[in-house]
């Protein structure tokens, strides 16, 4: 029996949002288990090692998320600069002492098998910072928002530049999409938006032609453009992923029974290509289920955005929605052959501590916004 206070507190939590995130994380733990089991068995290790760690990450994430959810809304807004500076410091640290994995200098190895990926936290940092900045400016005076855009771009350029040095194109893309989405919802004029998109195109074009991108990054795009060109080389990942997806059919081969998964044909399967495990072993039902869960998660996030009584909450929610949505789209899209291969994890599902922590914190922030909405009696949007 819940007391009236407990009931009120429970109503302050969007259980559908939390539920869908939890479901994704738990589903992810099974997929990670399946993806890592054969290798662990062969090397004589505990076949559940990755499962246990994934669940541990989730547990830590729940704690972080709870903290993010219960922290005072005001405190949250005012702590944005701290978050921003902290995430930038993390990115500097990784450049100084980080380790290179798969061509990216993105990890700080802590020892004991733990490593931190500061760029994941930078996503949280950027979202909070941008939301706070816009909201503060907006609420203090009623100037045109365009004026804030250069400042915002400058603020975003610092972590983006640091990430570019790693380099981690995927995260840059997430940040760019998130920033653009927040700007769009914040009411920046269409001209600015179109201009920024064009700028992005020019930057990408220049990067390709001025040799800023590494050869392997270009290869990934070439493989995307022509997946059958080199199925043993750069196109190998995508091709194997597509085969795994195709293998699944409607209901899949059953957990632990995927031939692609058991045969370890798909590299990075517990992280970036975790969706292929779902595709092969759970089939359209399971993989579609994951997309559906993301749909629910995004719906609830946007609902929170729409109902937020203040601009900070709304922009925070939109930013998080843009981040999750883009990352989901690119991650799943690359296994389906509709987006190029980039090293982006599937939120909640992929194995990886930093990503899980950042995602949980984001959910916590959303709950925080929701709590404020629920306690105020005048939702803006139904």
């Amino acid at each position: 029996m819940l007391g009236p206070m407990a009931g009120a507190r429970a109503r302050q939590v969007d259980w559908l949002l939390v539920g869908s995130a939890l479901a994704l994380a738990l589903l992810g733990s099974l997929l990670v288990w399946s993806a890592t089991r054969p290798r662990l068995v062969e090397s004589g290790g505990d076949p559940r090692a990755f499962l246990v760690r994934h669940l541990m990450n989730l547990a830590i994430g729940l704690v972080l998320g709870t903290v993010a959810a219960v922290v005072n809304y005001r405190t949250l807004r005012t702590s944005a600069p701290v978050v921003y500076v902290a995430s930038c410091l993390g990115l500097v640290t990784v450049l100084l002492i980080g380790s290179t994995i798969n061509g990216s200098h993105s990890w700080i190895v802590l020892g004991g098998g733990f490593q931190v990926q500061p760029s994941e936290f930078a996503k949280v940092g950027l979202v909070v910072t941008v939301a706070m900045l816009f909201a503060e400016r907006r609420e203090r005076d009623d100037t045109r928002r365009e004026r804030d855009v250069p400042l915002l771009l400058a603020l975003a350029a610092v972590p983006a530049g640091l990430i570019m040095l790693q380099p981690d194109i995927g995260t840059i893309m997430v940040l760019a999409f998130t920033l653009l989405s927040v700007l769009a919802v914040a009411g920046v004029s269409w001209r600015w938006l179109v201009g920024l998109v064009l700028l992005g195109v020019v930057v990408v074009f220049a990067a390709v032609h001025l040799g800023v991108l590494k050869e392997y990054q270009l290869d990934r795009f070439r493989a995307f453009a022509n997946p059958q060109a080199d199925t043993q080389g750069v196109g190998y990942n995508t091709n194997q992923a597509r085969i795994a997806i195709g293998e699944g059919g409607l209901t899949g081969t059953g957990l632990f029974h995927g031939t692609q998964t058991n045969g370890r044909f798909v590299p990075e399967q517990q992280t970036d290509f975790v969706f292929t495990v779902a595709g092969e072993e759970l089939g359209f039902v399971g993989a579609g289920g994951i997309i559906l869960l993301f749909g629910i998660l995004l719906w609830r996030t946007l609902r929170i955005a729409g109902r937020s009584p203040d601009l900070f909450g709304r922009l925070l929610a939109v930013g998080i929605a843009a981040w999750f949505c883009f990352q989901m789209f690119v991650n799943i899209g690359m296994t389906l052959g509709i987006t190029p291969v980039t090293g982006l994890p599937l939120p909640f599902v992929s194995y990886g501590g930093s990503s899980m922590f950042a995602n949980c914190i984001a959910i916590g922030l959303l709950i925080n916004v929701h709590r404020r909405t629920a306690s105020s009696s005048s939702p803006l949007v139904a």
Partner: protein
Amino acid sequence: MNDSSIRIFAFRVLVISMVVTLGARLYYLQVLGREKVVQTATRQHVREVVVPAPRGAIVDDRGRPLVRNRPSLVVTVDRGELRSQDDGGRAVLARLAAVVKIPAGRIAKMITPCARGVPRPCWRGSPYQPVPVVTDTTPDRVLRIAERAEDYPGVRAQVETLREYPHVGLAAHTLGYTGPITQEELDNAAAAGRDTYHHDDMVGRSGLERQYDDALRGRDGVRRVLVDNRGTVTGFDSETPPTPGDTLVTSFDVDLQALAEKALAEQVAAMRAQFDGKTGRNFAAPSGALVVLDPNTGRVLALASFPTYDPTLFVGGISATELEALTDPQAGVPLVSRAVAGQFAPGSTFKLVSTSADVTAGLGSLAGRYACPPSLAVGNQVKTNYDSESLAGTIDFRTALAFSCDTFFYQFAMNAWYADQARVDAGRRPAEVQQAMARAYGFGNEPGIDLPEGEQTGGRIIDRAYLQRRWEQNRPQYCADGRRGYPEVADAARRAFLTQLARENCSDGWRFRIGEAADMAIGQGETTVSPLQLALAYSALVNGGRLYRPTIARAIVGPDGRVREVTPTVARTVPVAPGLLRYIRESLVFGRGISVSGQTAFEGFPLDRYPVGGKTGTAEVFGKQDTSWFASWAPAGRPKYVVVGMIEQAGLGSRAAAPMVRKVYEGLFGIGRPPVYPGARRPTAVPGVSPATPAAPPPVAKLQPDTPARPAGASREVTRREVARRRARSRARPRGAAP
């Protein structure tokens, strides 16, 4: 709707469209586009492992196996894999040598494909097939290899199915043997669009094994295993189980065949111990044959040939030395079946043809009486009766057949020759009634028994056209030999004879001389037949003129128990009046008061109960002792069996061949020895047989390692790609001479 709402709505639409895009794309790939992608997946990661079909057994008329399978522990070496190692596999061979107790150098020779200049022992099979180095090795040796597989790359220890002969050596010539498929055969099969062969298959090489290979071999199964990108087997996909080979039921009988072979071997031994007064030395008796037929159906009941061999030699690969021994003329070429592929002058047994021809052509009459002088001038030669015997006055055909008077038959042959000469001189075609009748009885043509091409002979019947053809082909050689004069022949008389013969052949080799016509009448000269052909001709004599295309196979029984009967067909009907056939039969039946040649061999035989009819033959062969023949049937009233016996260089038909044939009849009728058939009654129904089963599980529990590295002990791994690669390799470099 204000600006803010529009913007958030637009963002919502964007998010929804992204989610929907993913969902739609997933649906397209997984649900709609499934076929295409699965195929790609299958092609890449499923390896096909050939599961060999157990070869069908060959059984006798009572279902008792003549050949069956047995599992054997075999160690094979893949030469290609050895050569790809840094030291060319030297280290592996050294380790293997220590285990199997064969010097490494010898193993290296054993696995080298045979070609010109390659020292023996060498490998006669496909150069890309793992070569069996040791068969029937011990489980502990196999274990030593299987447990440390990483120390023996290219070496496999596995269970293979080998042919086993429960009655070692029995019917060896007829059963034949199997051997590894050659690259050429594989290529031919591939070119013909047949995918039923794999590169380490065993195929029937001779005899029934070859003739019925398609039925016996079954269809290999395919086990599709899943492999990861490093080739490690990770799982099992599906399996098309092998279809075991059909069981070949023959009309042979283990007991009858054993009796025939024993009688033949004993008689050969006995003749070798006998002194031949004619040549002043013991009989050489180098070879012999026994044929038992059912004259009413054309089924072959037994085929014995001496010398014989042990087909087990071929199991698991025959060594070159062993094969040489089997084809060595000094040893009598044991590999050739004298019963089916041997050609010998038939001697007086051929008087069946002469009598049929003479009477049918009107040269002589059954009512007529003709002279039987001790000798007769034939052309510029004088030909005598055997031992210059003669009968006073005139005799009829019956007596001439029974007494086997040669001069009697010469007269008709000479008359026929003169008549033909007159026709030729008048520009007409010769009648050649002797040859026509010989062909009608099946001589000069392969009998069409169900044995492979090249393993049966049609014998030789010469006529004018044949001689003309031969002369045109060989004339340069004859003339050269005549001029050269055989300086390499030491014996002066023989040298003179050969030189004279060559000169005559050079100028007149095309002529069909009167002497040759006379020789043919008594089954000598150039006339040769196989014992099987003679048995078929005598079957026609006793069955009313039907000349069968004989079969050894009785039925082919599928693994599902379905029976396909094999029935001999009638090749032709002999154009001889039934009355004449009856006359000849009656003339040759023993124990009816008149003396018939060969009857002495049947003294004490209950001819009253089991009347036997038969004709002896004692064929004179230039430079050799006489060939002994006996062609017979029994019971004379309603013949159930035709038995033909032959021993080369063993003298009189009545002394060598007939006693041997008598033993066969004793067995068939159960006279003085247990009958070969239960109750002396030959079974007529197809016996029930059980289908071939795969090789029994290996007698070693741990033969299959726990690691999934090797799919199965008894399976042979062949990937399509591998075969293609091997083919490509074989094209890329010159191939050794075909074995």
